[in-house]
């Protein structure tokens, strides 16, 4: 028996209400699409956290390699002009 005998790993994304982005909630185990959806629902939405669910097999996630962090992320550190902080936010604009 392998170390993890609880089926394949899936990632769960929950949308709290319509229009909002899907946010990573965590992961679950499941052996097929239907079970993945049900387990995601039972694990992450039982207290009214969401109105929509995405699940996807974790194996399809392409993750960055920590060894590449300097190359990927450091160049953004010293470029303050990339942040649009000089604009006045219009009144009534939400979720920005």
């Amino acid at each position, binding site marked *: 028996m392998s170390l993890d005998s609880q089926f394949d790993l899936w990632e769960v994304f929950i949308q709290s209400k319509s229009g909002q982005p899907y946010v990573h909630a965590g992961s679950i185990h499941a052996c097929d699409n239907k079970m993945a959806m*049900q387990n995601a629902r*039972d694990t992450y939405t039982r207290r009214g956290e969401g109105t929509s669910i995405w699940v996807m097999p974790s194996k399809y996630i392409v993750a960055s390699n920590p060894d590449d962090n300097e190359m990927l992320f450091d160049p953004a550190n010293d470029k303050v002009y990339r942040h649009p902080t000089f604009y006045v936010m219009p009144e009534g604009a939400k979720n920005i």
Partner: protein
Amino acid sequence: MTTQEAIYKYALRLGDNSLILGHRLSELCSRGPILEEDLALTNISLDMIGRTQALLKYAAEIEGKGKTEDDLAYRRPENNYYNNLITEQPNGDFAHTITRQLFISVFEYLFYSQLEKSKDETLSAIAKKTVKEIKYHMQHATDWTIRLGDGTEESHKRMQKAVNDLWMYTGELFEMDEVDTLLFREGISADLIPIKAQWQNDIKIILIEATLTLPEDSFMQTGSKQGIHTENLGHILAEMQYLQRAYPDAKW
């Protein structure tokens, strides 16, 4: 029997069904085959206990003796319980848990869909809320039945055994006594005759897809509508009612 008395008994029965099955499923808390399934089964249990609360509260109201839903749940003796025998059957292996859930959820889905049209407003409102929950219970049990029935040799064997073992408790779901017929005439209760035909048809389709064999109808257990139970109910109540019996009116 007056209509009032019949509604009391009817609400009590429905409440007992969800209370006892809810308790059975709660026994699986921390004992599910995997973490996610543990949550799924206890979620279903909590749905059932919520439904029980509404039904027993209504029963207590109709009875008019100043009791609460807790009095009805924790202070009634075994022979005053009217849950269907199938709800009190042990969890057994996972195949038994799922098969029991399948038989009951398919029945409850058809039953509460009809009860939505009840002329009794409270029963109708409870039914409307409950149908949404049961639809999910049914989906969960159906998927597992197909997955395990059409799974490995071992899972297939266990599912077929569970179907065969529990089949004799399904006849009772469709029995109509004077409470049912009296309330049916008043447009309050569900008609179990068409539900029976539909249930048999739905179960047959699921079992075929799960490559399982539908048992032949033979001897069917009966008795719960008269308060006669299998030995399992006494054990459940002993655990469930212990605190209230040992320390009446205990608060915490």
